[in-house]
């Protein structure tokens, strides 16, 4: 009935690195039928992107196909050279990438960039290519396409940039589109819009699509068939329903467990054997806050205006008690990061006050706040553990630094002991302490970041998307760690995230922000189960859930 478009047979890809040859893909076999959307799921390092790049022949020069075949319409792609290859790329198969803004040339108008793709494969005039580019912008539903033709990528939002990428990818009506993490880094609502668009276009044009993603929910929502990859191999291939109800392989089970859903609890995220890495510390029951205790943090009518334009945050008020966890959610541009940075005293508010433990700190200039004794008490965990650690500091230095600066400790046994304690607290093996960030995995770096933040025993921890850059299984462990810190050390958590499933699990209360103002707030579960505003409802509905069936039945 349906025709096989692409079949990969026993693919091996090897990278030559400084430490010798590394086999990234070890014998992948899969096939894609015409017009089908296949999900290729796995965590970082599983080889899913490498498989995609090998197929489109965009592998890094260090990578080489060392075995197997990639047959596209019966032709072995791995053997194509020169012009034959160029006729394939962009014309018969095309690719869209993660981080759309970086994938577009920053100094070339987007209209020209689309026209480039058209002119590479069609012998038409520049004007005709421009007209086609304009049609494509319309097809990907960019508002005011005429004006946007001359826009540069930095003038567009991330979602817009990804639409432009899609326009480039479909410009020559390819038979196969490989989408490598197309919505990672985009808001949930934008993610939904972009994915719906992609699915519609693929269905309308009869394009086969491989959706490479780490997000099981996303794959489940849009694909009929999902292949799970681990360490360069495909470990399981099934329909989403089978995959989630009866995962066969141990790795799939772990992945399914770690993916947060609307109903999951933090305890459910990790299977038993994984918890061993975390050193158990005797738990102590959470002390109930006596009635009438003054709040730990009180924010009154906070506002932030940047040089020009409207307020980034306006009239923001909230309170938190010790050991409480509050989620701050909203789309990008909603002001959640700005708010969290003001509370952390990294930037100055334009108006309003911040009262921490009875002391007003809103008026201490942020550049002087490191002198304040309260600096120790309010600490921050940053978004990307890969970017937020000094590459020349070892894990030890990184944790020891705040202890010396803020805790007044001197290098010596006491410092060493305290650093070891912190590392143990976050489940970081002590033999990793002399390592530099590039020698640590993403999850280990996240732990270093948290250990650094808790080193001075803060009472409030502000976390700005602490798990956004992490794999789900690592995210699960980090979330459990955070929850444990809150319960056992009575650290209040202000958790900034766009991942509503995570916020629902971790936070007692949630505040929904939009355009710098509070839209809705309340007890997390109640808020998400019965959103009162359309905006919150839209956010909740946009989360891809594992249990939803594929929406793309029309494609076949």
């Amino acid at each position, binding site marked *: 009935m349906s025709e096989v478009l692409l079949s990969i047979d026993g693919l091996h890809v090897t990278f030559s690195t400084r430490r010798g040859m590394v086999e990234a893909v070890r014998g992948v076999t899969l096939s894609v039928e015409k017009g089908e959307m296949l999900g290729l799921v796995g965590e970082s390092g599983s080889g899913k992107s490498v498989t995609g790049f090998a197929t*489109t022949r965009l592998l890094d020069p260090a990578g080489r196909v060392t075995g197997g075949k990639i047959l596209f319409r019966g032709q072995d792609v791995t053997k194509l050279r020169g012009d034959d290859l*160029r006729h394939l790329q*962009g014309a018969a198969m*095309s690719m869209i990438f993660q981080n759309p803004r970086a994938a577009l040339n*920053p*100094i070339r108008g987007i209209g020209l960039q689309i026209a480039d793709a058209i002119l*590479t494969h069609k012998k038409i005039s520049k004007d005709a290519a421009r007209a086609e580019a304009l049609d494509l912008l319309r097809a990907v539903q960019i508002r005011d396409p005429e004006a946007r033709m001359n826009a540069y990528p930095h003038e567009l939002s991330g979602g817009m940039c990804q639409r432009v990428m899609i326009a480039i990818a479909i410009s020559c009506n390819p038979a196969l589109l490989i989408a490598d993490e197309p919505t990672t880094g985009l808001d949930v609502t934008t993610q939904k819009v972009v994915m719906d668009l992609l699915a519609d276009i693929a269905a309308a044009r009869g394009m086969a699509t491989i959706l490479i993603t780490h997000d099981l929910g996303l794959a489940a929502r849009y694909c009929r068939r999902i292949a799970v990859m681990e360490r360069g191999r495909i470990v399981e291939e099934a329909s989403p329903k089978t995959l989630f109800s009866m995962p066969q392989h141990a790795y799939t089970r772990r992945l399914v467990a770690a993916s947060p859903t609307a109903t999951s609890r933090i305890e459910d995220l990790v299977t038993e054997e994984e918890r061993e890495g975390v050193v158990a510390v005797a738990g102590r029951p959470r002390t109930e806050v006596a009635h009438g205790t003054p709040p730990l943090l009180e924010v009154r009518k906070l506002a932030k205006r940047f040089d020009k334009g409207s307020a980034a945050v306006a009239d923001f008020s909230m309170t938190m008690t010790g050991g409480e966890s509050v989620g701050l959610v909203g789309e990008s541009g909603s002001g959640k990061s700005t708010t969290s940075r003001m509370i952390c005293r990294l930037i100055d508010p334009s108006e309003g006050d911040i009262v921490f433990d009875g002391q007003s700190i809103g008026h201490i200039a942020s550049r002087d706040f490191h002198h304040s004794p309260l600096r120790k008490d309010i600490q921050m965990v940053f978004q990307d553990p890969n970017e937020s650690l000094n590459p020349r500091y070892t894990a030890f230095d990184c944790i020891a630094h705040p202890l010396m600066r803020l805790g007044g400790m001197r290098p010596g046994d006491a410092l060493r002991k305290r650093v070891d304690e912190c590392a143990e607290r976050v489940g970081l093996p002590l033999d990793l302490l002399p390592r530099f960030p590039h020698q640590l995995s993403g999850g280990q770096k996240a732990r270093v970041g948290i250990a650094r933040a808790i080193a001075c025993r803060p009472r409030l921890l502000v976390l700005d998307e602490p798990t956004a850059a992490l794999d789900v299984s690592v995210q699960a462990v980090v979330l459990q760690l955070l929850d444990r810190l809150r319960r056992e050390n009575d650290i209040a958590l202000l958790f900034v995230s766009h991942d509503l499933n995570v916020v629902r699990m971790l936070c007692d209360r949630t505040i929904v922000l939009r355009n710098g103002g509070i839209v809705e707030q309340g007890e997390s579960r109640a808020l998400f189960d019965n959103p009162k505003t359309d905006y919150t409802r839209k956010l909740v509905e946009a989360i891809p859930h594992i249990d939803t069936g594929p929406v793309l039945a029309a494609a076949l």
Partner: protein
Amino acid sequence: MLSYILRRVVATLPVMAIVALFVFSLLYIAPGDPAVVIAGDQASPEDVERIRQSLGLDRPFLIQFGSWVWRILHGDLGTSIFTNLPVSTMIGQRLGPTLSLMVITLLLTIVVAVPLGVVAAWKAGSLIDRAIMGFAVFGFSLPVFVVGYVLAYVFALELEWLPVQGYTPLTDGFWPWLQNLILPAIALGCVYIALVARITRAAMLEVLQQDYIRTAKAKGMGQSGILFIHALKNAAVPIVTVIGLGIALLIGGAVVTESVFAIPGLGRLTIDAILRRDYPVIQGIVLLFSFVYVLVNLMIDVIYTLVDPRIRY
């Protein structure tokens, strides 16, 4: 855009003022009494006094500086102590050869160095890359006068393809003019070409790793389209910067090159003026060179905004 350029021009005024102050102070920074220094070893006390008065050296420093600036603003750079000609006239006579030499060297550099750098980056790690970078180290290490004499010996004396030295104005014809400038331009450009080629390579290597280059490949674009449409323009900012900053190298190198090839340009005038302690001439030349340099930097800033739409003005 126009207002941006105007603002930038205004912003250069304080820079020029500081340069002017420094240039004027040269006379006073040099050890000894300026009048005695200028008068020379055999001068009588009366001679020294006369020079002191004629140059106004007996007046307070700031008043001297003020009247000097005032005269410069009116186009009067003073009069040479040695030739008694106005400094502006002397500079005007020597400007043509130096300007010609610098323009030819600049063009030669851009035409040679940028493609070399692009090819080296494209073929990074290959034999071609190593050869180009080896040549760059070589070009960087050789002093201008060595290259100059070797070139003159081989191409002028032995092969007799080009004149040994001298200068012919452009008004006497394009080829005679160019003929005299080819060897000096190569000698002067060696360091500059090496520098720009290296920076081009580094900037291109950086750009070629960016995601949008992969996108261009995914579109099926050819190698030249990727290198020149997508990569080179993105690498342009550091390249333009170095080309601009390198003008300073050219100014310094021109002094030596003009001596080697007997070109009657500003470089020679500079040396002569220094040897004769002809302070008004030295001041005039240094001021001119500084002005050129500031102007070049202004041009670089304007080019940035043309190359990169993300740079706000």
